[in-house]
């Protein structure tokens, strides 16, 4: 038996993943355990969980693999300061102590931490370091259903690369090309996220959700001044407008002057049409760059399969355009495309490339790939759930699985918001029916209700649909599964509602109040939806719930949003779920076979969730 632990840590989205003989046994983000969103801490609890899931101890591991190479990053740091000097002294003064005191010693820190788990490492356990974009690429290629594929990774920055292309063939990944810091599509998007008053590394989704409310009227200006985009998709960012390479902010005054407005004040300043137009513009530029990169790869190489990873690959609107563009016949996207997924990729690099172990066919596995539906986190036995809920003070009914699904489907059909906590927790940022809050997509008021009373988040933010895999094309303009909610597709034309002239003339947030289809709660203002197709093979219980909802209502779609409030990591344990349930306007909660009704709970257990977590 060969056991390999992958670790991503010390920057953001710390995580751990465990392979045993190449099989993904477990993977989880540390934030779910510590309850600190995007935590950069050493993933102690995630590692403990992974080891427990496999029944192993630290000493049983053959290799531990860190997801990037600190010295290469340090080299880039020095070269950046040298090339920008004397600009950047303020940043230099802050960064150097951090490196000298801490980050250069990551190997020592890792060894110290690893040795604190359950007896520590065995003397023969190796500690290895993979490269950041190779880790991303491995996480995208090895679990994919393809024997051969091009792999495109796009993110903020790793050691040096910000964009990389690999050829995946058999058990090997061969680097083909890369774009280096400071020219970064991820950092361009983050710069706009910062300028629009959202949190970098967290609010990028909001920009994507805000974009359809605006007009992309700044595209030409961005491409003229900020981004030099070549026909092959390669690009350079004019650093005179940015501050991330040498300063402590993402953009500078020249950037604000270019667009004629100062940076939006986070949380306090209302979103205006200008901000929506900026969001629409950077989204359009991102799509243009991604499409140019992908089309050039399709022209140059014979491979018809494409894998995507890196934070930018979570831009499901761009992914949908890549799919519909048709340059590649098939695409597969790693569900944990952010840095958390690098923990998995790093372990796979060690197994396939370092140990030269063969890659087994993935396409015939449940769900059609090696990710097991991305349900790779903790799950809880029924007896354990009952003990935990009782200890938390919850009142519940224990129902048979079929009866519980039927009860939940009935409640959903009556317009209730239902917490759904079943099986293993998802790996990656999306809730896929393991830790979800569900609602009826036919309700015209559900989008607003869920945003404001359950999620405590901005009213403009859209919700995603879960649809039975076999019904996807009846509801959406999509002819293939989208199991990880990473593809945006339009709602089928036949389901859309005719707009009146007055409706069509609406601008900005006013568009939100118009019903656009027979499933309005998941139809965004541009008729798009971030689709999750639910596969009976990987999540039979969720599939059964939607099927029962369809029997009662004729609708094979549910609203699926992550089980958390704004700023909170997705719930991990039954207690987390109960506390979130009690802190919001959720009506009922299903945890395993336990069914909880809000009206039956002790009101004294309700806590104020509106300000419990720092806003993201």
């Amino acid at each position, binding site marked *: 038996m060969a056991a390999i632990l992958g670790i991503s840590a010390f*920057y*953001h989205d710390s995580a751990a993943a465990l392979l045993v003989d190449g099989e993904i046994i477990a993977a989880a983000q540390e934030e779910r355990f510590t309850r600190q969103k995007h935590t*950069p801490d050493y993933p102690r609890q995630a590692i403990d969980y992974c080891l427990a899931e496999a029944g192993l101890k630290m000493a049983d591991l053959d290799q531990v693999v860190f997801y990037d190479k600190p*010295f290469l*990053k340090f*080299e880039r*740091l*020095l*070269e950046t300061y*040298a090339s920008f000097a004397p600009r950047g002294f303020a*940043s230099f*003064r*802050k*960064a*150097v*102590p*951090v*490196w*000298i*005191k*801490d*980050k*250069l*010693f990551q*190997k*020592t820190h890792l060894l110290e931490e690893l040795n604190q788990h359950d007896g520590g490492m065995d003397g023969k356990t190796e500690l290895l370091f993979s490269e950041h974009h190779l880790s991303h690429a491995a996480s995208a290629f090895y679990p994919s259903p393809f024997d051969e594929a091009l792999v495109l990774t796009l993110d*903020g*920055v790793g050691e040096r690369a910000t964009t990389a292309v690999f050829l995946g063939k058999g058990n090997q990944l061969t680097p083909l090309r890369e774009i280096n*810091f400071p020219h970064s599509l991820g*950092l361009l998007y*983050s710069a706009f996220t*910062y300028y629009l008053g959202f949190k*970098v*590394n967290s609010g990028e989704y909001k920009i994507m959700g805000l974009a359809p409310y605006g007009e992309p009227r700044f595209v030409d200006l961005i491409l003229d001044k900020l981004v030099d985009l070549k026909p092959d998709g390669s690009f350079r960012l004019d650093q005179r407008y940015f501050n*991330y*390479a040498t300063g*402590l*902010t*993402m953009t500078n005054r020249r950037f604000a002057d270019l667009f004629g407005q100062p940076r939006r004040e986070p949380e306090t300043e209302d979103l205006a049409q200008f901000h929506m137009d900026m969001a629409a513009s950077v989204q359009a530029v991102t799509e243009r760059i991604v499409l140019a990169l992908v089309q050039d790869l399709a022209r140059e190489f014979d491979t018809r399969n494409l894998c995507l990873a890196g934070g930018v690959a979570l831009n499901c609107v761009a992914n949908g355009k890549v799919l519909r563009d048709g340059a590649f016949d098939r695409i597969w996207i790693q569900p944990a495309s952010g840095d958390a997924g690098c923990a998995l990729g790093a372990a796979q690099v060690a197994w396939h490339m370092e140990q030269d172990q063969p890659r087994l066919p993935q396409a015939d596995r449940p769900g059609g790939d090696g990710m097991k539906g991305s349900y790779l986190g903790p799950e809880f036995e029924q007896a354990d759930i009952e003990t935990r809920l009782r200890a938390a003070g919850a009142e519940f009914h224990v129902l048979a699985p079929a009866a519980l699904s039927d009860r939940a489907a009935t409640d959903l059909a009556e317009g209730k918001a239902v917490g759904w906590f079943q099986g293993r927790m998802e790996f990656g940022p999306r809730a896929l029916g393991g830790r979800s809050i569900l609602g009826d997509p036919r309700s015209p008021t559900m989008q607003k209700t869920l945003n404001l009373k359950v999620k405590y988040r901005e009213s403009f933010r859209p919700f995603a649909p879960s649809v039975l895999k076999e019904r996807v094309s009846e509801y959406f303009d999509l002819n293939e599964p989208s199991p990880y909610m990473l593809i945006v597709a339009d709602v089928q034309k036949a389901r859309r509602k005719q707009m009146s002239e007055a409706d069509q003339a609406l601008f900005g947030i006013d568009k939100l109040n118009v019903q656009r289809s027979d499933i309005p709660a998941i139809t965004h203002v541009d008729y798009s939806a971030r689709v999750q197709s639910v596969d009976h093979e990987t999540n039979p219980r969720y599939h059964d719930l939607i099927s029962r909802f369809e029997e009662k209502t004729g609708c094979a779609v549910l609203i699926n949003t992550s089980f958390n409030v704004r700023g909170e990591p997705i719930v991990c344990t039954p207690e987390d779920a109960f506390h979130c349930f009690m802190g919001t306007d959720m009506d009922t909660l299903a945890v395993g076979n336990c069914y909880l009704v809000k009206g039956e709970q002790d009101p004294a257990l309700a806590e104020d969730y509106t300000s419990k977590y720092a806003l993201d």
Partner: protein
Amino acid sequence: MSILIELVHFLVARKKYWLWPMLIALILIGGLIVLTQGSAIAPFIYTVF
């Protein structure tokens, strides 16, 4: 000490000889900064470094 040896090996392997003077100056300056302040916390909005 082992970290310095590893750094030397790294720079030799990468053939980044022009970084030597900068690295030495940096270790001196950095060491001074570390010694003269209480904590070293990354202040960056984006964790580029």
